[in-house]
């Protein structure tokens, strides 16, 4: 059967850097085609070209064999291509229905929007895809996972032939991923084609038929997934066989207590959280979405003031009431969302790296440029941040490199405690493994590391100990010998009560 979609010899440069170099892919009707590659490999760029959001420098797109030319997103939409972008593009101040039908609102004879029909159609669609949502809710009031599903509904409402899903699962819990996959299977039955990006290998092998692999903006190859294995796919992505994702855990007996948390409470959010981090340890936090993990980290960092309990670092009580005091006490937080909480996207790598620790390199209130540039160069080398030069705008770096800049900014304060919130979200496999090595290295240097991740494999692979939160309370504590995904999941849904005082 002829492919419904062909992209041939696509090239695109940004500021003289090749983002895509002679890349192509093809997809048949009713096929789920994966686009895989490390961050910065050019996947999103390719899909943005296909959806008309940016224009290619060279190459052609063919739909059902006929060449097409998309000048803007509307052109692509009109030809049956819908995209769900990695970063959500919903409007928080509009309702669910208004978002779904934006610019395509049903209208009456006088071109006035038929609100009733819009609400009914939305409710009908939501019911059809079994998504529980009120069409009149403001999108901004809904949790991220639901917003993601609404974005998907929006793309489906255009009745497209080709649906592009750019990392749709990164903010979804497993049960929601299941729901999404059911939708995808339904769409396949209707002979729709789907382009799918995900960093989760299991998901690709579960839902996709074939894959195109990109590396550094070049095509590696396209293949059928039933002819390959996860390991082979990963090694094609990173261009070398991947030995092991996780570095070895701490061998020796843990050292003295560095961080001690006792009965930490925040009214209505956290109650009586107690745990220790010993020298050399990485302590993980597990839990379903929204059980107080982010709040616990923010509270330790001083961003969220505590209502009760004690935090001591090296046996000295710390009482940080804001982020500044947290930094002074030697606590660095690598936040969940690097784009809104971790970086100044429009500033340079240098300015970002230096931002949290400016007072350490100043004299008479003025920043000493020489010391700053030494400091910046040091971290660019140490973390192997891939930037052309320190003055490059952070927003132009790939996700993995951006995350390294966030880490470098935190390390700049010479922290004694390092808190990670989802350290590897939206980062490719190769960079992930680099990150794990970095985190392990920092722990062995004596920095107390606490990390929350929704990825249980990552938690099990990295942590020497994991505490589990359920409704703001500790519902379990597991040492590395007891760690496996099942026990963590049981504690996360509040089933077990293992542990307690950790």
């Amino acid at each position, binding site marked *: 059967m002829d492919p419904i979609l062909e992209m041939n010899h696509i090239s695109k440069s940004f500021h003289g850097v090749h983002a895509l170099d002679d890349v192509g892919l093809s997809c048949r009707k009713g096929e789920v085609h994966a686009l895989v590659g490390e961050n910065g490999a050019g996947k999103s760029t390719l899909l943005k070209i296909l*959806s008309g959001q940016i224009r290619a420098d060279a190459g052609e797109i063919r739909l059902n064999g006929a060449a097409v030319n998309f000048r803007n*997103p509307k052109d692509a939409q009109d030809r049956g291509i819908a*995209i769900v972008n990695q970063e959500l593009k919903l409007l928080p101040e*509009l309702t669910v229905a208004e978002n779904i039908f934006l610019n395509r609102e049903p209208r009456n004879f006088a071109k006035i929007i038929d609100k009733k029909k819009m609400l009914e159609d939305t409710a009908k669609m939501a019911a059809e895809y079994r998504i529980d949502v009120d069409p009149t809710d403001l999108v901004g009031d809904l949790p991220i996972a639901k917003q993601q599903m609404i974005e998907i509904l929006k793309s489906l409402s255009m009745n497209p032939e080709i649906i592009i899903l750019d990392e749709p699962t990164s903010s979804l819990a497993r049960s929601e991923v299941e729901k999404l996959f059911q939708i995808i299977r339904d769409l396949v039955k209707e002979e729709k084609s789907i382009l799918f990006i995900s960093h989760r290998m299991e998901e690709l092998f579960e839902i996709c038929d074939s894959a195109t692999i990109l590396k550094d903006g070049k095509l590696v190859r396209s293949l059928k997934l039933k002819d390959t294995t996860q390991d082979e796919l990963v090694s094609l992505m990173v261009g070398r066989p991947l030995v092991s994702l996780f570095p070895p855990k701490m061998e020796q007996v843990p050292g003295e207590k560095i961080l001690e948390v006792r009965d930490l409470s925040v009214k209505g959010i956290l109650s009586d959280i107690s745990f220790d981090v010993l020298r050399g340890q990485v302590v993980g936090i597990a839990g379903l979405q929204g059980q107080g993990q982010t709040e616990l980290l923010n509270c330790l960092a001083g961003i969220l003031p505590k209502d009760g309990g004690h935090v001591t670092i090296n046996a000295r009580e710390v009482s940080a009431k804001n982020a500044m005091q947290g930094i002074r006490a030697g606590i660095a937080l690598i936040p969940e969302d690097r784009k809104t909480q971790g970086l100044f996207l429009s500033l340079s790598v240098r300015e970002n790296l230096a931002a949290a620790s400016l007072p350490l390199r100043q004299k008479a209130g003025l920043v000493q440029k020489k010391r700053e540039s030494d400091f910046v160069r040091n971290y660019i080398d140490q973390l192997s941040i891939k930037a052309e030069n320190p003055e490059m705008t952070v927003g132009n770096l790939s996700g993995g490199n951006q995350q390294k800049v966030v880490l470098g900014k935190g390390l700049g304060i010479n922290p004694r405690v390092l808190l990670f919130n989802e350290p590897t979200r939206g980062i490719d496999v190769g960079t992930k493994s680099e990150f794990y090595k970095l985190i392990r290295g920092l722990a062995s240097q004596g920095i107390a590391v606490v990390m929350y991740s929704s990825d249980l494999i990552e938690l099990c692979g990295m942590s020497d100990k994991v505490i589990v939160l359920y409704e703001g309370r500790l519902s379990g504590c597991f040492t590395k010998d007891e760690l496996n995904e099942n026990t963590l999941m049981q504690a996360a849904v509040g089933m077990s009560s293992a542990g307690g005082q950790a």
Partner: protein
Amino acid sequence: MKMSILDRNELKKLAQRKSQVVFIYAFLAVMMVVAGNLDNSFFTVENFQNLLTTAFPYLLISFAQTFVILTGGIDLSGGAMVSLSSVICATLFADRPGLFAVTLLVSLLSGLLLGVVNGALVTKGNVQPIIVTLSTQVIIQGIALTVLDSPGGMVNADFSTAVNGTVANLPVPLLLGIATTVIFWIILNRSRFGHSVFAIGGNENAAYSSGIMVDRVKVAVYAIAGLLSALAGIMLAAQMYSGDPTVGVNLTNNSITTAVVGGTSLAGGKGGLIGNIAGVFILIIINNILNLIGVSSFYQYVVQGGILILALAISSLRARR
């Protein structure tokens, strides 16, 4: 599933979302009671006719500003456009009553075209709205002073009488005010164009991805703002039977104040038109009260500035939420 246009559930949500609008109308009610206590003649038909006549031009320019602010921009040139259209209206073909329709048309077109220029500079020129309109404001003010360097000229008497008169015992400004509000409410809330305005202010990138022609909508918004400003200038000229090249000087400030007081967020993407009506009347009644208790008109500026700061503070508190 039964779903009327406004069922109970939706009404409740609406009240929550539009809490600032509800609040501002409550505040207006309080101001009216205060004014009534200070002045026995406040609650009279004549006074209300007066208030309505004064309010209409303010309302027009307030709507103009709201459209621009909703896209995330701002129009600092509105007041100058009011002045320009006012002097055109009072001078062009002043001795040829038969050509007054042309005069009106030129006044309106001046606003429309200058609005398009603002929009083009913002979109094609990629200059920030505040810079664009700050510059065009100076230019437009200059043109207005060139046309007429001091208050004067003549506005067609028939037109002035008609605009200031009544139809079926209802003051014309009231009828025009209701018509304008209904038309622009429908444009903003029940047309694709209106939804695009909210979308652009909320997230321009997302709006573009949804297939909205962002530049086109923005140019249209600045054009509408220009048109409404010009209409305000015509109304003011008709009220005074003459033109005034500085009549709009304070109106830019007023338009921002009333838009923000009315519940529109300066960040864009959030707000509406209904609160503006209360905003306009609050401003007018406060001035009315200050006049009644004999406060100098200079202090009235201080009070107006205070209200603007208060409105901005509320707006930013809401944005942070």
